[in-house]
């Protein structure tokens, strides 16, 4: 049956007897086997003879149209086709980038080269006392009086509740980062506290809620953790990077074979554009 089909196919696609090589479409047995496999994958059964013939006809039809489109140069000037071909290259590169999980040695080596990226943020501990804005005019003055009291008494964490106005914020924050402070107090406060000298009561410092008197009790500068402590993140970054890198690598490899020439107008246009 296959032989008959192929003969018929060749007849169909031989087309106008121009004799040019690019007008010759050869259908092999393995082409047909592939068509059959595609059918089975979609429909979970063998195709009937009619269905197989139909698939072949469609294949031939597409091939002919494709060749003709090439002959007419559509691959060169159609934006949709160009984009599809570019995308195909990117997909191929992404697939190459997706490999198995990296070994410990690879993770460690990757980390060693980029350890700055995994630097832990500075961490601080601080006590804070809140002054609300309910009597806006006096708030700053109250804060100043309170600051003097705090500097005199220097209360421990347990006594802090006796000072200032009530709010649903802990009086003491241990080992917090800038992100933690931003989420609890807002950006303005986090920035100001990040610049405070540790050891004494200072302020008032403004937050989204009102005024705060603050004592930074401890500050640990940022440090680089051992790679084992951030292994999962490193592996995630490696995989993420591998896909992007192989995309870029494939491009660079291919681009080496191309010589990019720009005419004088390009430089002029680029020069006149605003940054």
């Amino acid at each position: 049956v296959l032989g008959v089909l192929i003969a018929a196919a060749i007849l169909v696609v031989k087309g106008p007897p121009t004799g040019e090589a690019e007008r010759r479409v050869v259908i092999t047995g393995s082409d047909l086997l592939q068509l059959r496999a595609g059918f089975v994958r979609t429909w979970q059964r063998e195709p009937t003879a009619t269905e197989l013939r139909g698939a072949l006809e469609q294949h031939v039809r597409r091939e002919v149209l494709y060749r003709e489109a090439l002959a007419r140069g559509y691959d060169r000037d159609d934006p949709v086709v160009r984009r599809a071909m570019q995308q195909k290259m990117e997909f191929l590169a992404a697939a190459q980038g997706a490999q198995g999980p990296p070994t410990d040695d690879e993770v460690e080596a990757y980390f060693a080269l980029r350890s700055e990226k995994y630097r832990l943020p500075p961490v601080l501990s601080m006590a804070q006392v809140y002054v609300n804005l309910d009597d806006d005019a006096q708030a700053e003055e109250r804060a100043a009086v309170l600051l003097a009291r705090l500097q005199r008494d220097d209360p421990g964490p347990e006594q802090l509740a006796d000072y200032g106005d009530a709010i649903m914020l802990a009086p003491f924050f241990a080992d917090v980062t800038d992100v933690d402070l931003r989420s609890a107090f807002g950006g303005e406060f986090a920035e100001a506290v990040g610049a405070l000298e540790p050891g004494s009561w200072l302020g008032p410092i403004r937050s989204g809620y009102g005024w705060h008197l603050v004592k930074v009790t401890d500050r640990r500068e940022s440090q680089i953790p051992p790679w084992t402590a951030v292994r999962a993140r490193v592996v995630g970054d490696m995989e993420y990077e591998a896909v992007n890198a192989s995309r870029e690598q494939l491009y660079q490899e291919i681009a080496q074979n191309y010589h990019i020439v720009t005419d004088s107008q390009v430089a002029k246009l680029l020069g006149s554009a605003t940054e």
Partner: protein
Amino acid sequence: VAPVAVGEPNPLREAYFGETHVHGAYSLDAYIGGARLEPDEQYRFARGEQVTLYGKPHSIGRPLDFVALSDHAEYIGEMYSTIVPDAPGHNQEELEQLRKMRSLEERRSWFAKYIVENNRGTNPQHPPFFTGFGTTKSAWKMMVEAAERHNDPGRFTTLIAFEWSAAPDGANLHRNVIFRDANVPDLPVSSYEVRREDELWAWMAGLEARGMQLLAIPHNSNASKGLMFPAVDAGGEPIDLEYAQKRQHFEPLIEMMQIKGNSEVHRNFWTADEFADFENADSLAKFSGRTLEPRNFVRWGLEKGLAYQQELGSNPFKYGFIGGTDNHNGAASDVVESNWPGSHGPEDGSVEARRTGEVGGWAEARDLNPGSLAAVWATENTRAAIFDAMRRRETFATSGPRIKVRFFGGVNLPGDPADPKTMVEQGYELGVPMGSDLPAAGNAPTFTVYAVKDPDGANLDRIQIIKGWVDAAGELYEQIVDVAWSGDRVPGPDGKVPGVGNTVDLTTATFTNDIGSAQLMGSWTDENFDPEQHALYYLRVLEIPTPRWSTYDAVRNNLPLLDDVPATIQERAWSSPIWYSP
């Protein structure tokens, strides 16, 4: 060197903010719109990192505490074929088209041909380019692995989830299904396998019998054509005790608000509620034959639930409140009004589209909003603690800002709390928190309330308690009480506190915090309490007025304000209710 320290569990609980409803590249409708964020990038976005959204850098600035990516289970296999180059079926022509489409018209006609027409009728099937459950399994495995990779106990929680997206005759019955841990089945379930909600609960019961823990969150009751809070089950039989018990068990929470509207109430039906005019998304009723009726709204559903409790002995609609966006750009909790880039690809992805376009089959784009934020009161930021908070309904939703709200009730609860810490300690010791039941009692319960503003946001206007109850005949009633408010405003003769004012400058889209308050606290005793009546109480907090996203859009682009949507809004938060049964 230890990594940054993680705190001890807090028995008084912390508020954690997150997302329960977001679609990325593995949701077919999102992919068609151009969404290309896959789970790894979606998690990075949720942690506050910058990602590229339709060619532009975008971030939410502040990290979330938790996130559940909820891609539509229906097509994750098809999307695996589409996205992964060596997956079965990758080279099919339909998928080639899907990958290449550029224009909105192309996308709409492809979607109509393969999805909409395919899903019509009573027996929808997977589209012809589905190559089998092997691809669904691969997609789900990839999603579970990504969630595992990004889960960072104490700092950032990833909850494994999917959306079951049944829409019989265009009525939205969608549920987001969320798992407690990585003990999950090999496959999620889609509306192709399970058509209606009762079958979904049966599927969930099967997993529970195998030791898995999961819950389902319905959403968009406003688009349910009256089917979200039905009087009859999927088979047309009046709902009964078994139905009510099952629904209550599997669905402890409901999504209060999202991009396609706020489902709490609608101003047309709640005329006595002066704050009911908030992101009503009126144009939903112009599409897909939807209806605008009271029984589509959460407050009605919850009050009706009391009537069923009385009649059947169990409340089928015993919902706590949670937030979510339903963002189809893959961007979790992209809820900030001042830099909202839209939510559904090109359909609302430009200023022009947001002002004049529509999100196909859903609503006019000008009617949309950025969606709501989910919040839980949990002892620590872990999967178990956050899931358990959801299970016990100790949750609240906000329309975007990170407002924190506390709400306790109890017969022995002292009123006039001295400070928030004491209020919370007494609340847990002598009363019950949001999401709980008041014990049976003869005396009037007292409720204590507290709210604190978003530290980077607007001040607060007021805290209200909304009470719903049912009489012996099954009639529904409600009452709205202003409990705490900013400044020295005096309630009018009708008991209502006058408006807080408005500082918004519409020519610059800015506001000031010269009005309102950073925090509000108070208490209320229900003097009309009738121990024989079923009742529920929930809290609503309002911010002072701020510009709506459409106002920011107009000012940034020097365009006139839209005349048929409000220029300013009062953002808000809703606590889960506290229920009482005789």
